[in-house]
Each structure stands twice: as structure tokens, then as C-alpha cells.
């Protein structure tokens, strides 16, 4: 009997809660016949804002919540506390009142879904919902039309840093046809270049200057492939869920672009083009010949690069296409750490100029669309909160001085310093030991907070890629990094712009999954490229047509 009473109570409570919950959050109808929970969120946010604000336009931002990915290298294990402390001091001084910075830095690989959850379930002022956040170009295009991002066109136009911008086209190109700007890119995108191990070239009796065409490149890979060693490795044959898709294996993809992009003013689906069929066929040949490492199919970027610079070079690869500039230094340092080609020093790697087939089609390596900062719009129609966020975060980020230095190099006397000092990396290893000595007033990077055997490289902004340079003269004079950046800028072209389409946003993940499956099947020799594209057209043809119609009508 007791059991039955208990069951009855539980069931009643469940039904009552459901009803109560339903009525509590049942969306109220709006004028347009739509109903949204956001209306409630907006009301809450407005109420909070009203309480905090004496009048519109004088919003006092006391707490700034930002969500960042792994590109903020001053993470919690790497001196983030000091970064926050110095940022708060510098920005409080600039804006004239105290401000606290709260950084939410989810796992880099799960960033996209973390952001989706935060923006869906959170609301401004709940202590988690980001006031501003970083997005990749692809991600930004998916969010651009959702109404969740603030149009910062006016704030950007009136920003103090305008007078110092050297690359205005980066942000101008992100504006919509109506002149709206929903994101801000503090740097240009950067891209990947092909690195070859000098020792492997020497062993094969090859010179980088002789690698000019795909045939030369392919023969080099063949020469590298023997006794467990392979020609090339990458994180996937193509990264079909992230623009610019082809940048990890550009020699094989050549002029193909396996996604929707603009060609001669019209949006087209590059995955269905002959160039993609040809590229897939080349990849399949490379896989069959064994010049592409079999681990490529499943490798993450971390797995691929660690295998490439591993201390076991007997199962490694000679070629790796990866990020330009700072990464040339990082890859070289990692080879050094693993005792690979110690005698070659900073000449361990050579950068391969784009092969003929790339220059004849794209014109060079692809410079990806820049990652951006966006500001969330609370939807109350009043811009004072959003403008305050812009002023505190973005305006100061490119101040050319203190705050920009924080975003570029990190915290003073933690990541960098101008005080006289000397330190030694790898003091216990005579082969790797390196002494550093700096005079008073000389800008220099310090040892990494979490690894005293390596020197800190940079924080969030790459000083070479930034659109408005530092004005305080703080420059890290690493020759290798400078050479890497110079090589890339001389050999790159801008990536096609990502499309912004509602239908595409809805199906993009499934589309990328299916395209990746088909690509992998073709490369592994399970089906021909033609059959794969036919299969793709049968499943996705109608949807792609709808997407292209939507885009071309914009």
C-alpha cells in the first residue's frame, strides 16, 4: 500500500512539475506570431542593465566575460592569472573605472559545441554567457544571421585604432551588403606552407629548388618512402569541416575547393567540380603508392605533427604542410627537443615554394579567412552595453601599447620583460643548453611559465599578422619566425569567403561528415572519385541546389 501511495505521489509531482514548467517557460506569442524564450532573457537582461545604468549611453561595464579557444596561449597553466591582473589594471585605467575580466577557455577541440551550448542555454549576466568571444571564420558565418551578434560597424568606424590600421581590407571584406559588421578580426588569417626536412632531401640527393611541379613533388615523396618512412603526413586528407579545407595537402588538392564558394560572382559547389574529382584521384594514387602516411586518415593535427617531429624518425615522414610563421620556429624547436638533425640547427626545415599547379590555379598557398572576435547582442535595442564591451575589449586590444602588448606577448615579467636578466634553457643537457642574456631596457621573451626549457613565443595576437602594429617598438626578433612570415606573405593568396546560409548552417555537419566519408572511401580505393561524387549528388543534390539558390539570391 505504501509503495502505491509513494508511486502516486511521485507521478502526481512529475505531472504537476511538467505542467508548471510548461506554463512557466511556454514561449509567449510575439507580434510576428513567433514565440521565443529570448524575449524573457532580453527582459531579464534589460532589467539588470537598467539597474546598472543611470542612463542609456553611460553603461558602466564592471565585469567582462569572454570565451576564448586555445589561441590564447596564456592559459591557466601558462600565466593567465598575471595576464588578467595586468589587463584589469591597464583597462581600468583606460576606461576610468574598475573592470574585472573573466576568461572561459574550453578545450580547444570542443570549442564549437561549448560555444553553441553557452549561447543557447545562457543569458547575459549569468556569469557564463560570453559578452564577447572568438570564432573561426566558418563559425562566424554560421552565426552571422542569427541575431545573436552585435553589429559593430559604427564602433569599428569610430575606433581609435583606425588611424593605425595597415590592413583595412580584412574587416571591410567582412561587412555585409548593407554595411553591417558583426565581427572584428585583429589579425589576418595566416595559412599553411609545406615544410620539408633538409636531412631527408640530402639523403635523397634532392634540392628544394628542383621541386617545381606536382610530378617533382610526387617523386620526392616516393624517394622519401622506404623502410617504414613515408613521404607526407597530414591531419586528414582534407579537413572538410573547416575552411579552407585544402590547406593541409595543397599539392594534392591544387585548384580544387571541395565546398561551396564564389566563382565568377556565382556561388557554386566545388565538391562536385572536376577539380575535386582529379584531386581525390591524386590522393587515392598517393595512398595506394604508400607516399601518404596511412595515419593521415584519422590523425588530429597534434598526432600528425608529433609523429612528424618524433624522436623516432624511422617511422616518420619527410614532408608536413602546416601553419606558417611562428610554427616554423615551433616545429624546429620540437625537432631540436627530440634530438632530430641536431647538426642542422635552425636549418632543419626548408619551405617549399608553391608548386606550379598551385600557382597556376589559386596563385599561391591559401591565406585563410581570419578568426574573429564577436560581441553578443542582448537584443534590447540599446547599444550601450555592447559599445562598452567594444571599448573595453576591442578598442584596447589594438591600443598599440600596454594592452596590445598583453594580447601579443602576454604579461610583463611573466612572459616577457625589459629588465636585465640572463637565463639558461636545458641547463642539464650540454647538447641543448642555451644561454640568454639581456640588458636593461631590452625587450625579450622569457622562459615559458610551464616549461623553463623553452622560450615563450607569443600570446593571442601574432605581432606579424596584426592589422595595427604595436607602437612601443616591442619586437621579437626571431629570424626564423620573420623568415617564415616573409615566405608566407610572398607566396599566399586570400581564401574564398565562406558562405552564410541558413540551410547550410542546418546541414553543414552532416554534409561535412558525408563528404569526409566519401573522400576517405575514394582515397582508400573503395570507390572511384566519380562514383563518390555521383553518390553525393544523389543524396545532397537537391539540398545543395536550395543552398545555392539562397546564396545567389542574396
Amino acid at each position: 500500500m505504501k509503495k502505491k501511495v509513494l508511486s502516486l505521489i511521485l507521478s502526481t509531482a512529475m505531472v504537476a512539475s511538467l505542467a508548471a514548467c510548461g506554463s512557466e517557460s511556454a514561449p509567449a506569442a510575439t507580434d510576428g506570431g513567433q514565440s521565443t524564450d529570448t524575449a524573457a532573457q532580453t527582459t531579464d537582461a534589460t532589467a539588470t542593465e537598467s539597474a546598472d545604468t543611470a542612463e542609456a549611453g553611460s553603461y558602466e561595464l564592471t565585469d567582462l566575460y569572454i570565451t576564448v579557444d586555445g589561441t590564447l596561449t596564456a592559459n591557466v597553466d601558462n600565466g593567465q592569472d598575471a595576464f588578467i591582473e595586468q589587463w584589469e589594471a591597464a583597462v581600468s585605467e583606460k576606461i576610468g573605472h574598475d573592470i574585472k575580466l573573466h576568461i572561459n577557455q574550453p578545450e580547444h577541440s570542443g570549442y564549437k559545441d561549448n560555444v553553441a551550448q553557452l549561447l543557447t542555454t545562457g543569458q547575459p549576466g549569468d556569469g557564463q554567457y560570453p559578452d564577447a568571444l572568438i570564432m573561426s571564420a566558418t563559425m562566424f558565418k554560421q552565426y552571422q544571421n542569427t541575431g545573436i551578434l552585435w553589429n559593430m560597424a559604427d564602433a569599428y568606424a569610430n575606433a581609435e585604432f583606425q588611424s593605425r590600421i595597415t590592413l583595412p581590407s580584412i574587416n571591410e571584406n567582412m561587412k555585409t551588403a548593407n554595411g553591417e559588421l558583426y565581427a572584428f578580426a585583429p589579425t589576418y588569417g595566416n595559412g599553411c606552407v609545406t615544410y620539408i626536412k633538409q636531412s631527408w632531401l640530402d639523403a635523397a640527393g634532392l634540392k628544394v629548388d628542383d621541386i617545381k611541379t606536382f610530378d617533382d613533388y610526387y617523386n620526392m615523396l616516393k624517394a622519401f618512402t622506404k623502410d617504414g618512412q613515408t613521404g607526407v603526413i597530414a591531419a586528414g586528407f582534407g579537413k572538410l569541416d573547416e575552411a579552407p579545407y585544402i590547406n593541409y595537402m595543397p599539392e594534392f588538392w591544387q585548384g580544387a575547393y571541395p565546398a561551396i564558394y564564389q566563382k565568377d560572382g556565382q556561388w557554386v559547389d566545388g565538391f562536385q567540380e572536376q577539380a575535386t574529382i582529379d584531386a581525390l584521384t591524386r590522393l587515392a594514387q598517393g595512398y595506394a603508392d604508400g607516399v601518404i602516411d596511412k595515419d593521415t586518415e584519422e590523425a588530429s593535427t597534434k598526432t600528425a605533427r608529433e609523429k612528424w617531429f618524433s624522436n623516432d624518425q624511422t617511422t616518420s615522414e619527410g614532408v608536413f604542410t602546416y601553419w606558417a610563421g611562428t610554427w616554423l620556429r615551433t616545429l624546429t624547436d620540437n625537432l631540436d627537443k627530440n634530438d632530430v638533425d641536431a647538426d642542422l640547427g635552425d636549418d632543419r626545415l626548408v619551405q617549399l615554394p608553391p608548386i606550379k599547379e598551385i600557382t597556376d590555379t589559386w596563385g599561391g598557398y591559401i591565406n585563410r579567412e581570419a578568426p574573429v572576435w564577436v560581441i553578443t547582442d542582448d537584443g534590447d535595442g540599446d547599444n550601450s552595453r555592447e559599445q562598452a564591451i567594444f571599448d573595453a575589449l576591442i578598442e584596447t586590444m589594438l591600443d598599440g601599447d600596454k594592452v596590445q602588448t598583453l594580447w601579443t606577448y602576454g604579461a610583463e615579467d611573466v612572459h616577457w620583460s625589459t629588465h636585465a636578466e640572463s637565463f639558461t634553457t636545458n641547463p642539464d643537457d650540454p647538447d641543448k643548453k642555451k644561454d640568454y642574456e639581456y640588458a636593461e631596457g631590452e625587450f625579450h621573451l622569457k622562459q615559458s611559465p610551464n616549461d623553463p626549457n623553452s622560450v615563450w613565443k607569443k600570446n593571442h595576437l601574432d605581432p606579424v599578422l596584426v592589422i595595427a602594429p604595436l607602437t612601443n617598438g616591442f619586437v621579437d626578433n626571431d629570424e626564423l619566425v620573420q623568415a617564415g612570415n616573409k615566405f608566407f606573405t610572398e607566396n599566399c593568396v586570400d581564401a574564398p569567403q565562406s558562405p552564410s546560409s541558413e540551410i547550410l548552417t542546418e546541414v553543414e555537419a552532416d554534409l561535412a561528415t558525408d563528404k569526409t566519408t566519401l573522400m576517405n572511401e575514394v582515397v582508400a580505393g573503395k570507390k572511384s572519385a566519380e562514383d563518390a561524387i555521383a553518390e553525393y549528388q544523389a543524396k545532397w543534390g537537391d539540398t545543395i541546389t536550395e543552398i545555392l539558390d539562397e546564396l545567389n539570391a542574396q
Partner: protein
Amino acid sequence: MFLPVVIYVLIIYYWPMLGVRYAFYDYTLKKMEPVGLKHFEKMFADADFWKAFFNTLQLSIIKLLITTGTAVIVSVFINEMANLFAKKVLQTVIYLPHFMSWTVTAAIFTLFLSTSSTGFVNETLKSWGLIKESIDFMHELTLWRPVYYLVNIWKETGWGTVIFLATLAGINPELYEAADIDGATRLQKIWYVTVPELLNTIIIVLILNLAKVLNLFESVFVMYNNRVFAVSDVISTYIYRKTFMTAIPNYGYTTAVGLFKSLVGCALVLICNWASKKVRGRGII
């Protein structure tokens, strides 16, 4: 006295269940609109969903039968071992994989079966001259499921023997003595005494596990890849992809899929309860 328990149950078990209402809403960024049964219609029309549904049933049920069968056979062999020390060592060794996480297990087997020069199995087969080209165990449609079952056998057989060994320990020794007097061989004793005594336990184990067949995620998630989706994608991985791999997910749709899965799971529990009542005279709930 039971009030704290009721409150605990309400908060921990029932309150989160209120989220099932999202199955009837479009729930994305800045939007929560009631849409009735739209998500269920979409789900039932999606070939990928049905593929995942039938994969789930097939993988789970075959895995259950194989691992239970293996556990029974291993239990009987362990029970027959006369050397107590060897018996204990063997038991411990086969229990160990159960305590290894699925992530580690998948990493080990992926490396072990890899087609690259570090793949132990392929390199060994090649060095013995049994194969010329490496076999892509993890990416071949025809091989993925057998590999999946083998890994499950390796990982879960030891743990599965616990309940059978307990049952075997409780078999009346007089039955074996009687069989000895009748001149039964060792194999005959296993077949005519041990197996019939274990049968009730085997059926109970199968029934209890049948209720959980739709809860298949981690083991598949860490082992599957794009090329074997056709034979490996299960409901939970389908939900995962629709929720976490999508830039702006519609939580309403994935809740609907989850709700459907729960309803089928609930039906299976009730069927198993009924079966349990038939077999052992009392239910499992």
C-alpha cells in the same frame, strides 16, 4: 521518514526529466517554438536514423550473446582447473581489462591493428608471409564488427565470469559424485551437470542485459570512423553528432531522438520484466 528520499528522487531523477518537453520544440539559438511532432516525423524519415537504430540493436544483441557465451565457457574452464594458484592468477588476469577505460582500450587496439609500420598484427602476419598487404581492420566494413566483438570479448569476458563462477561454486558436489559413480567422463559431467545448473543464471544474465541494449555509446564512439559508419553508427553516436558536431544544433531534434530511444528502452525493460517473471518467478523491477 521517507520525505527526504522523495525529495531526493524528485530532484535528482525526475526534475531533469522535464527536459523531455524540448522534443516538441524547436530549440536553437534565440528560438524556442512548439513544433508538435515535427522532430519525430523528421527522425522517422531519416535513413541515417534507422541505420543507427538497427546497428544499435544488432551490435548490442550480438555482443551480448557472444560475451555471455564466452564468459560461460571461460567460467567452466576456470571451474575445472585443479591448481588453485593458477586459477586465481588466470581470474585476475582476465578481470583486469574490465578496469581499463574504453579510450585506452581503443587506443591500444588501434595501434595494435594499425596498417602503418607500427601495427603489430599486420607486421607479424607480413613477416610470417601470411599476407602481402596490410589489412585495414579498423576501416573495412566487413571487418569492423568482428574486431568490435573481439575487443568486447577481451575486455568484458573476465568480468562476466564473476556471476557464473559464483553459481558454479554453489552446485551441489553430490551431483558430480553421482556422475562419477555413473562413470561419466569430465566432458560429460560438464555437459550433463554443470551446463544445466548454469542455465537459469545464463537466462537471467541475458534478460537483465537485454534491457540495456540501446545504451551503446562509448565503446563504439572510440572505435568507429567515417568509413565504417554504415555498420557502426548507433543511436547515441547519431545523437552526439547531431548535437555536438553541428555549429548551431537544434536541441529539440536530438531530444526527440533521445526520447524515442528511452521509450524503446522502457519497452525492453517491461518485456524483460515479463520474461523474468516467467523464467524465475519474479520480476526485475
